[in-house]
C-alpha cells in the first residue's frame, strides 16, 4: 500500500474515532500510520529510523512483527505510559494508537496480508480471494485513494462542525439531538432552534428560528424573536407540535440560576435587581398571596401560560421579567422564585 494511502487511512480513522478536527492530533495519527512499515528500510519510517528498520528487515519478513496486535499493544503502552506522566499528551497517545493500528490494518486488504496475530505466522487477509485484494500502486488503489480523500474531507468537515452524532441529529431533526446540543452548550451559548411544526390550536404551519429557554418535559420552552413564549414538543399541552427540530449554537451567553425568597413583599421590588442591560431574565416558582389584586392577566391561547394565578397563589414558569413586572409588580407575595438569567453580549 502506498504511503499516502496509509496517511489518509490513519488520519481519517483518527479523526473519526476521536471525533476531532484538531490538525495536530490528526497529523500524529496520520504519521503513526506510517510507523508499521518501519520493518523495511525503503519505507518513509524506515528511512527516518534506519537502525530500527535494519534490525527488523534482517530478521523477519515484511509486515510481520510491526504489523500485529502485539506491536499495537506495545505502541499503546508506550503512548499511554508517556501520557501517564504528562496528561496533556493523552489525545496524542490516542491518536498514536489509533493511527498505528489502522496503519497496519489497512494492509490486510493487500495481496500479501499481515501477520496480525504475530508471533503466529498466520497471514491475515480480507477478502480471501487474492485477485480481489489490492496491489500496491494499482489502479484499484488509486481509486480507493480518491474515495479516501473524499471520506477524509467529509470526516474533517463533520468533526469541525460538531461531530458525527451532532450532524446526524441535524439530519434526523429529533428533539433528543437538540437536547444534546442544549446540554453541551446551553450554559455558555444561546441555542437557537430551527423548528418546523404546527400550532396545536389551529394546526397552522410553524417554521422559524426560536431561542431555547429551557427544557420542558420532552420538549422545550422557546421564545420567538417577538418575545412570545411557546412550548415546542410532541406532548398534548404544547403550543407548537414538533415535526422537525434542529439546533444551532449561537452567540456566547452565560446562563445563571439564582434563587429569590419573598417574605410578604412586592414582587416588582424584589425582582427589580435582575433588570440588567443585555440580560434575558425568566422567572419560575410558586408564590402565595393574600387575595390577588391584579385582575385580568393576559391569556394568549397560542402562547405558553408563563403566569398562572388563583386568588391565593401565583405560579410562574419561565415568565419573562418584563411581563412579571408589568402584571404582578404591585402584588405582595411570599415564596421562593428561581430566576434564570441569560447574559449575552448583545441580544
Amino acid at each position, binding site marked *: 500500500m502506498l504511503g499516502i494511502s496509509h496517511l489518509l487511512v490513519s488520519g481519517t480513522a483518527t479523526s473519526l474515532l476521536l471525533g476531532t478536527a484538531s490538525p495536530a492530533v490528526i497529523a500524529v495519527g496520520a504519521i503513526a500510520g506510517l510507523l508499521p512499515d518501519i*520493518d*523495511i*528500510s*525503503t519505507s518513509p519510517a*524506515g528511512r527516518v529510523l534506519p537502525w530500527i*528498520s*535494519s534490525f*527488523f*528487515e*534482517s*530478521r*523477519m*519478513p*515484511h*509486515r*510481520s512483527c510491526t504489523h500485529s496486535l502485539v506491536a499495537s499493544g506495545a505502541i499503546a503502552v508506550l503512548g499511554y505510559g508517556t501520557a501517564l506522566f504528562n496528561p496533556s499528551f493523552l489525545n496524542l497517545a490516542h491518536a498514536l494508537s489509533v493511527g498505528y493500528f489502522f496503519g497496519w490494518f489497512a494492509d*490486510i486488504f*493487500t*495481496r*500479501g*496480508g499481515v501477520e*496480525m496475530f504475530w508471533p503466529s*505466522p*498466520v*497471514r*491475515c*487477509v*480480507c*477478502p*480471501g*480471494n*487474492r*485477485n*480481489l*485484494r489490492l*496491489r*500496491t500502486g494499482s489502479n484499484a488503489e488509486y481509486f480507493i485513494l480518491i474515495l479516501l480523500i473524499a471520506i477524509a474531507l467529509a470526516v474533517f468537515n463533520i468533526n469541525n462542525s460538531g461531530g*458525527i*452524532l451532532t450532524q*446526524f*441529529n441535524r439530519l*434526523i431533526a*429529533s*428533539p*433528543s*439531538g437538540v437536547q*444534546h446540543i442544549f446540554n453541551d452548550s446551553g450554559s455558555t451559548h444561546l441555542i437557537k432552534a430551527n423548528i418546523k411544526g404546527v400550532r396545536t390550536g389551529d394546526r397552522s404551519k410553524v417554521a422559524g428560528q426560536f431561542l431555547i429557554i429551557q427544557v420542558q418535559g420532552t420538549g422545550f420552552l422557546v421564545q420567538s424573536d417577538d418575545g412570545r413564549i411557546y412550548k415546542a414538543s410532541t406532548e398534548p399541552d404544547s403550543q407548537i407540535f414538533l415535526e422537525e427540530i434542529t439546533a444551532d449554537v449561537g452567540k456566547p451567553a452565560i446562563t445563571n440560576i439564582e434563587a429569590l425568597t419573598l417574605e410578604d413583599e412586592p414582587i416588582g421590588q424584589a425582582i427589580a435587581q435582575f433588570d440588567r442591560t443585555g440580560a434575558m431574565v425568566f422567572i419560575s416558582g410558586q408564590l402565595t398571596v393574600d387575595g390577588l389584586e391584579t385582575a385580568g392577566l393576559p391569556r394568549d391561547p397560542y402562547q405558553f401560560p408563563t403566569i398562572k394565578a388563583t386568588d391565593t397563589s401565583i405560579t410562574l414558569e419561565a415568565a419573562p421579567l418584563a411581563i412579571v413586572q408589568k402584571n404582578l409588580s404591585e402584588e405582595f407575595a411570599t415564596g421562593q422564585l428561581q430566576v434564570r438569567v441569560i447574559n449575552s453580549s448583545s441580544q
Partner: protein
Amino acid sequence: MLVTGVFIAINGLNPLSLLAMGVSGALAFVPKLISKLSSKNETQEPPTEIIPTSGEFKIYRQAELNRTTASLLADGAILIAGEDGSGKSVLAIAVVEKLQADGFMVAFIEPATPKQMLLEIAHQFEIPTEDLEGKSLTADKLKRAIATFLEENTAFLILDDAHCCDAKFRMWLKQLRRGGAPMLLLATDPPRTDIFINIPRIELKPLPEYAIREIMIIAAAERAIALKPSELSKLQERAGGNPMLAARAVDEEYLGLDVEGADHRRYFDITPLILLAGIAFVIMRFIGLGTGDQALYIFGGIAAAVFLGISRLLYNLPPEDRRIR
C-alpha cells in the same frame, strides 16, 4: 556464600551482614541465571550441522531426520506429510544417504506405473527381475519376490510422493507393512485412508524464518544476484515458511517478475472478524434504545444494517480459483 558465612560468623548478625548476605545471594544466582539462559539459548539454537547431501541442501529438519531413521531402524514405518515444497524430498534423500552410509540397502522410488515402480525396487534391491527361463517377472511375481526379500533381509523402502500412487499399489504397501517391512512414505496432503492412516506420521511444520532467510540468501548467491535485506524481507513474505517458495520468490525476483501474492497456506481470511465490528453498532443501537437517545438508536440501526449488507456482499464474493490462471 562461604565468604559471607565467615563474615557473619565473625561480625554477628547486623544490618551490614544482612546486606552482605543479600549481595552474595544475588551474586550466587547470577551464574546460575546466565547458565540457565545460555542453556535455554542452546536449546533454542537451531542445529547448525550441515548434512552433506547430493542436492547441496542444508538440513533444517534434523529432529525429523533423526526420528525417521530411528523409526526405520526399529523396523517401523513412518509417513512424512507436508505441503508441496516443504522439504519432504530433501529429507528423504538425507534419510537414504544416512542409511546407505550405515551400510543398509535402501530402495528410493518415485511414483510411476506400478510395474515400473516394482522393477525399480527390484533393481535397487538387486532382486532378479527375470525367471530361470529369462522371462520378465509379472507384477504379481515381482511383488512376491520383493516381499520375500524384505522378510529375509534388512532393507528399507522409501517412497516419495506416495499420494500419487494408485490405490492398488498402496494396498500392496499395506500388505508389506503387515509383514513388518520397514518403509518411509512421503506424501503431500495424503488422504486419511489405507496405508496413510495405518502408519504413524510426522507432519512437517513450516521452516522458521531464519532458515527461510538463509535459503533465500543461498538461492540469491547461486543466481549471482545481490539482494538487499529490505528486498529479502519483502520476498520472505511470499515464502510462508516453505523452502521451495522461498527459492521461487528469489527466482521470480531474478526474472524481474512483479509478484505480490503467494501460494503458501498461511493466509487466513479474517472477513468474519472484521464483520464482528458490526456488533458494536448493534450494541450502540440498544444503548440508544435503552437511554432514549433517538439519534444513537437510529444511527446504530442504520450502521448495523449497512454492515449486514456489506457482510452479505463479502460472503458472496467469488472464491479464489484453485487453478493457476
